[in-house]
Structure formats: C-alpha cells, structure tokens
C-alpha cells in the first residue's frame, strides 16, 4: 500500500498515512485530486478505480471515506477488508467510533493504525493482539478520560455499518 487517506463527505482530510516518500506539495496535490474523484462517485459504484498507475480502493463508513492506494499486483478485496478491520479496531477502541473521535483523538487513530499496518503492509491482523498492544500502552499512562456524549453531538457512528 502506498498511502491511506480518511476524509469526510465535505472533503475534510481526517487522517493521512504515507508509506512512500513524497513532498508535502505532492501529498497535497494527490489528496485534492483523489478526494475530488472519490466524492464524485455514486454510491452503488464499485469500490475500485484506476488512478495514475495505482489502484484506489475506497469505502464509505457513515460520514467518513476510507481510501487506500495500492500497487498493480496488490489484492483489491483484501485491501477492502484492511479498511474494514481498521474500522473495527477504531470502533472497539473508542466504543462505537464516530468521526468526532478521530478528530479529537487523532493521535490515537495514528497509533492504532501503526499497530495494524506498518510500512504499508499488514503487521498484525488479530483484533485482540492489536488492541492488547494499545491497551498496554494506555496502562503505562495515567488515563484521564475525556467523554464525548455522542448522542448529544448527533453523530452517526460507524457501528451502523460495522455490525
């Protein structure tokens, strides 16, 4: 995998992970182009498209688009499930994750991703093991909890699609 982008329906970038060296300018250009391309697609269309010399695999969960760029010989369907497993991990960690969790705890979203994917390859696919690593890290710190009343903020959480 070359990179992964999370962006909202409004086109706001929520998370970016680059596994190939690119300049900031190039990253911004790619992001702009891809967000536009993906948002222009209709709901029933297929989740794969050719883009430059890469294959784009994307899926929408509630208000967020998860979008991965893979190389020619990579497997589209398994990438789709990488996205799904990441969503499951976020969901399990945050408890019914929603876009706000990722905005306010963006650093956690990055940490979880690093435990799951490293250098663009699956490092650990067991949900239990990934969460165990994150939990262990959490135990090392004095956890002060910050609550978000999701119902109050009216965000639809991903669980709608996760379960």
């Amino acid at each position, binding site marked *: 995998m070359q990179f992964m982008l999370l962006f909202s329906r409004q086109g706001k970038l929520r998370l970016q992970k680059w596994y190939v*060296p690119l300049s900031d300018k190039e990253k911004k250009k790619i992001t702009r182009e891809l967000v536009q391309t993906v948002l222009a697609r209709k709901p029933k269309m297929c989740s794969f498209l050719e883009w430059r010399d890469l294959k784009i695999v994307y899926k929408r969960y509630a208000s967020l688009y998860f979008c991965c760029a893979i190389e020619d010989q990579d497997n*589209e369907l398994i990438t789709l499930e990488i996205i799904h*497993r990441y969503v499951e991990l976020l969901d399990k960690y945050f408890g019914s994750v929603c876009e706000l*969790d990722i905005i306010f705890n963006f650093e956690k979203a990055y940490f979880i991703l690093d435990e799951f994917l490293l250098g663009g390859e699956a490092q650990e696919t067991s949900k239990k093991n990934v969460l165990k690593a994150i939990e262990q890290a959490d135990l090392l710190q004095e*956890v002060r*909890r910050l609550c*978000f009343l999701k119902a109050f903020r009216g965000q639809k959480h991903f669980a709608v699609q996760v379960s």
Partner: protein
Amino acid sequence: MPAVSKGDGMRGLAVFISDIRNCKSKEAEIKRINKELANIRSKFKGDKALDGYSKKKYVCKLLFIFLLGHDIDFGHMEAVNLLSSNKYTEKQIGYLFISVLVNSNSELIRLINNAIKNDLSSRNPTFMCLALHCIANVGSREMAEAFAGEIPRILVAGDTMDSVKQSAALCLLRLYKTSPDLVLMGEWTSRVVHLLNDQHMGVVTAAISLITCLSQKNPDEFKTCVSLAVSRLSRIVSSASTDLQDYTYYFVPAPWLSCKLLRLLQCYPPPEDGAVKGRLVECLETILNKAQEPPKSKKVQHSNAKNAILFEAISLIIHYDSEPNLLVRACNQLGQFLQHRETNLRYLALESMCTLASSEFSHEAVKTHIETVINALKTERDVSVRQRAADLLYAMCDRSNAKQIVAEMLSYLETADYSIREEMVLKVAILAEKYAVDYSWYVDTILNLIRIAGDYVSEEVWYRVIQIVINRDDVQGYAAKTVFEALQAPACHENMVKVGGYILGEFGNLIAGDPRSSPLVQFNLLHSKFHLCSVPTRALLLSAYIKFINLFPETKSTIQEVLRSDSQIRNSDVELQQRAVEYLKLSSIASTDVLATVLEEMPPFPERESSILAKLKKKKGPGAVSVNELEEGKREGGELNGGGERGGDSSAIAASNASTPSPSADLLGLRTGPPVTAAAPSAGSLLVDVFSEAGVNDDGFLSSTPPSVVSEDPATPLPESNELLNKFVCKNNGVLFENQLLQIGIKSEYRQNLGRMYLFYGNKTSVQFVTFTTTVTCPGELQSQLNVQSKTVEPLIEGGAQVQQVINIECLTDFTDAPLLNIKFRYGGALQNLTLKLPVTINKFFQPTEMASHDFFQRWKQLSQPQQEAQKIFKANNAMDTEVLKAKLLGLGMALLENVDPNPENFVCAGVIQTKAQQVGSLLRLEPNAQAQMYRLTVRSSKDTVSKRLCELLAEQF
C-alpha cells in the same frame, strides 16, 4: 472496553480542536491558529522550563495544525526532547510528530537517531516497537545507514518478543525499499525464511511481506521459501474456520496471510518437487471448491475475504500457466462472477479474465463469455467497470470474433465516456489492423472510427491507415473510392480530410475513370473542405493538389488558378505561402518528366512496429500490453505492411528500399510525418555498424575476405582514428595527430586516380626519438584496391626537429577502408607505438562535373535502382550555416550545382570518381531542415559501395 473514548487527557488540545471546529470561516480559523502558534512559540521560548506534559500538549497541537494543512516551522526540537522522556505517552507523541513532520535537518536526524538507538537497546518491547515504527514511517537513507545492520539481528534473535519481530520485519522491508544497497541479509537469509514456520501467525504475516520483497530481488537465495509457503498455506486452507481463533476473519481462516502466501508463490515458477507441487495443486483446488460452497455468513466481509483468496489463487494459476484444468476452472468461476450482483466482483472478474485470455489454455474458455462482456460494455453503470469490459474484449479478440468485437466497440464509441475514448480508438485501430483479412474491412473500420470519434483519432492512427494503403496495392482503389464517398458528407472531421487528401493525391487516378469521381470532381470536393481546415491540413491539401497536377494534367490550370490566388500565394502563414509559391513554380517550369519524378507515388513504408501499438503501450505503461501481444502485433503489422510479400528479397534490399522515398517526400511537407521517421533507422544504421567496425579486423563482415598479407603488425588503430579520418574528408591539409611527444602534419594533393601525401613528423620534446620507423599497410581487401608506396624516414629525430615522409597513392578501384599508418620509436628508452588511419578516402579521387538541371534530374532518374542509392537522415552536429556547408561540399571534391534543386535550401552536387579500373559517376543531394536541425543526405552513384561509403563519410561532416 469502556464505552467512553479514552485519551490521555490533554484538555487544552481538546479545547483548541473545538475552537477550530467552531470557526465560522477560513479567516477565523487562520486567526485562531496564528494565535495558538504565537502562544506555543512563547511557551517554547519562555524562561520557565516546560514540564513533559505541557511539551507533549503543545507538540500535539502543532501536529494537529500541520495536519490541517498549515506549515509548521518550529517545535521539532521539543519533539525530539520528548523522545528521551521516560513517560510512554510523551515519547509516543514525540515519535508521532517526527514520523509525520520529519525534514532532513541533519542536526536533528542525528539526535533522533540517538534516541532511536537508545530505545532499540532498552530491551523494553513497547519502546522498541515505537522506535521501529518511527524508522518504518520515516524510512530515510540516514536511518537506513544507522540501523540497517542492527534490525536483522533483532528480527532473528531468539529472545525477541513476537510484537517486536513483527515491527522489525516490516521496518526492514521499508528500509530495503528505500535503500536496498544498505540492507544485507547474507547470513540471516535462512533464519528469515524460517520465520514462515513461526508459531505466531502475526510474525508470519509480517515476515512474509519482507520475504516476498526480498524474493523478487534475489529469487535464488530465497527459493527455500517455496516449500515452506506451500505447507503453511496447506495448513491454513485445510483448517476449520475456528482453528485459527482470532486470525479467522468472518469465518475465513487467515485471509491476509493466505493472500500473502499465494502472492509469494507468484515470485517463483511451479515447484519442481512433485510432492510440493501436488500439495499446492490440492490447495488451489480446495480454494476453487470452497468458492462453490454455500457462504458461512451473509456478511460482505465474509465473501470479500473468501474471494480475495480466490482471486489471488487464480492469479497464481495464471502465473503458472501450466495447469489447463485449473485454468479452465478459474475461468468458469470468473464467468459466474461476471453476472454477480456485487459490482466489485464483476469488476475484478473482468480484470482477471483479461490475463486469462492471453493463456493458450484458457483463451477459448474466455471467449465463451463474449456476450456477457459485450452486455457489460453496454449496460454497466460505472465507467470503471465498462473500461474493464472494453479491456477484456480487446484481450479476447482473435480472428474468429474480430469483426463482432470491433463492431461492438465502434458502436460503444458513439456513446463512450470521454475519458476512455482515445484508448478505445487506439484499440479498435489495432484490432482492425491485426485481424484484417480483407483490407477493405480495415479501411472501412478506420474511416468509421474517424467519423465517429474523429477528435480522439490521434496522428498515429491516420498515419497508419495511410501506411497500410500505400503498402497494399490491392486496397488502394477501394480506399480511394471510400474516402471519396466519405468526403461527400457535409460535415467531415478534419482527420477525414487529411486521409482523404493524402489518399486521393496518391491514388485518385484509380477512380478517375468514373465520371462521378472525375479528377475535377475530386479536386472540387477536396477544395470545398479547404477553408474549414487548420494550417497543417491545408498544407497537406496543397501537396495533394500538386500531386493532382501530375496525375491529371487536365486539372493543371484550375489548380494553378487556386495556387495563384492571393489567399494562397500571399497567405500569412509562411508554410502555406511557401508551398503555394513552390508548387505553382514547379508546375509551371518543370517538364512533365521532372514533375513525374518529383511527384512520383510514395514508396512502400518499411516494416516496423505499429506506431499505434507503441502509443497504446506508452499510454498504458509497461506491462499493460503483454510482450506476447507486442510481438504478435509486430509480426502481423509487418505482414500488413507488405513485408510478407517481399519476404523472399534479401533484407539488405528491403532495407535500402525502405530508405528510398521519392525526392518528392519533402515537397509533400511530410518531413515530420511517416516517411522520414520511417527511413531513419533503416539502411543507414546498418551501414554504420559495418563500417565503424571495419578498422578492426575481427569484424564478421570483413573476415570473410582473405586475411591481410601485408599487415605484419595487427596493431589496432587508436580509438579516435576514425574521428581523425573524418576531419580530413573535406580538406587535404592540417594536423593529423598530436600528443605530448609527437605532432604529425599532413599535406596532400590528388589528380585523377593518383595522390601524393606529405607527412611531417615533429618531435615536440627536447629529447631525440631513436629507431623511428613508420609503416603504411592496407588491411584486408584494401591491398587490392589501393596501391600505397612510402619512402623510408630518418630513424632519428632530434628534439624540436621535424622530418618529412612522402607517400604515393594510386586508386585501383573504389574502396571503403583506410590505410593504416603505424609509427614506432623510442623516447627516453620507452617504446612508443601508435597506429593511425591515413586520411585517404574515396572522395579524394573525385573530378567535379558541372551539369544543368535537366541533365541532373535525368541522371538522377537513371540511377534509380535501390542499391544505387544510399540515404541517411541525421541530426546536425554544427550550426547549419549555408556558407560552411558549401565550403564543405566543395572540399568533398564534387561540383556544387546551383539552381538545380527546386528548393533553394537544398544542395545538389555531381562528380566522377576516378579509379584505375573504372569511373564512378555520383550525384548527391543534401536537404537541411533548419527547424528540426536535421539533414537528409541522398547519394546515388553507379556503384552501390560508393554510394554507401560516400553517404557514410559525409554524414559525419555536418
């Protein structure tokens, strides 16, 4: 897991993020950010030392601001400080900042590397993982230099925790991708391969990515991974869905690992060991069988994971391309997916079938799905799926279904998405050419293509149809008739006008017998389009008109009228004006003979790879068009090009035919078009090879002649001696050679077939040269072509002195090689030995011949056998100065004829080469193209070897 989100409680960060979210405008957001940046800067600069928590909070805020898309130019140092914190979360934020925002500030890189080093050696697995993640995320060369040696050790050490191994494997992979030279597996190789056997599935999952990448680069060293991968795969495939516990995903055992194992196997050919192979085939069969079983879950995740493995297995089956049974089963499975309700599966099935279509075992099976695929092209709602369908139709096309597929693609083109039209056009053009049985179908198809999607028909496509029509005389009449009809349409695409103009200009005579398409009707039809066309097309039409004058003298006055009109002869476009003026002049002063020569029909184009295939390949990138397909295209293209019919001729003749476009080619303004580019790589380059090797006696071409008797010393001339030789083609006097010791000057004069050369050897040192001897030899067949006699020189040359040597040369017959001059002497005790080529070239024996334009063209025409002509198209090495060119041509020894060539930019020369055996008349034409900085040089002479040699010598002069 609690239902509340956990953070590490950076309240300030949360407040800041809230503030940003509440900003109503971009300006407000920027204002808020600037305020925060000022605040953070003052905190970082303040006297009061910040505690770890505050530092972490501010660094995190900076990171947030950066991720919003703003530039951050400070805070790196504070982030680096966090790396050495003992508190995990502080360290973690520090690493995150570095991973996202690292720049190659060398000072910082050293500090970062230090912190990483400490964490790697901390033996705290959580810290080690953080450090490894950071290396994997940054992956810079500096990090590779620092850690590429250490990480393999961590990866294979017995006491490394599993989670650290996983990170180490992928970290190493990232470093290998950026700096393969620094990652040396060497002694670790076999232990790394054995990670495939690790008990921990996570370790295998991570390690296999590394192994796959390394195997691609060093297949031999890693080949033991094949049997390990097969047995691992077999265990997974045969396991029950619950065996693998948390590695089972929606009832599919270890889908990621399975895919990676199948991917690894695609780096290798089928296993040679029968048992291993049997086991693998069993696995593949099981995977195919499972696809037919009822799903264990209705969730899309279940089917996706299962099918991901299936597609990867099919890729492996296609990669092996050796198991007909499996290939056909794969094809049937994909056939089912073609009609699946999931768009994703239809897309992938179409994509995968494309590769199956190129296998001889499954090609026929793929073809049975043609109706479904055509239907997909028509009805799929997603353009990317339609694109796949078009690709598959292209891939499954062969002689049996070409007409159907081309027709379907053409009809799809009428409504096709703009994004894929150009590619579709190329594909239709290629298929039409490749599978054309009768060429009228081909012509019809291409003209239809231009009609339907003219805007997307690139130059290559219409060049190609013209090349083919010119090379196939059986289709020329039909082509003329068809373009004539197509041009009747009130609105024609400009590309149609181009093809029409070109073809009628060449072959309009073939339909001129019919009063409905009489010459004048043809002309009026073409001219009715003229005013709507762009300049290049108008230029082409003007050339068609002058060709008409030649084909149909009865149209001469009408066309001259047109050329003479102000809108032509005073056109503000230089090219059009020039053509109008030249053509008008040409048509009024040249005799019918000259006109017929200048405007003769285009010669066949040389055999070569289809330009459109090359274009498609370029467009799709390497790999998109299989090698197989390319070769096939080349072969079939060649056949089409008329090469097939000429198969009996020797390739040399074919090559020189290829380089014989009529002199009218440039008049027709196609300098940048097909004929010139086509001729460029032909005969000329072939000759270069032969002649550049000629000085060295081991060349295969020359060794067939009797070996040299005279040559006692097989010394090879200096590498630069060819260059030195070239210096003297157009002049007789100068310095032939100079180094620190010796200078050799030369003076020569030639009369008839005799020459005399004075060589001056100058001692540049203050020490005498002793035992100074020179020998002149004629290697190989040259000894029967040249008679060279040299007087001996004084064996001693004092320091600073000069001695002279006289050489007499008699040209017996024409020759190509040059005599060798070997010089030996001792300087301060050391033996010096060098060999040069004596600048005796065939043109030295030229007698200039003056002649009038009429005579020149008549002789030119007489020398029309293909072998008598040599042509070269080459880039200008020097400025294209007319005076310099003239001086050089005069130096060549021929007469420079003024007012002979209709184009004043061109040069023509005539001369006779005097040899004892015969006289060889030679004509030369040099056409400079200042715009392209290219020359075309054509030499015709009564002897083929002379033409070639002259062309060869001269091509180096400009």
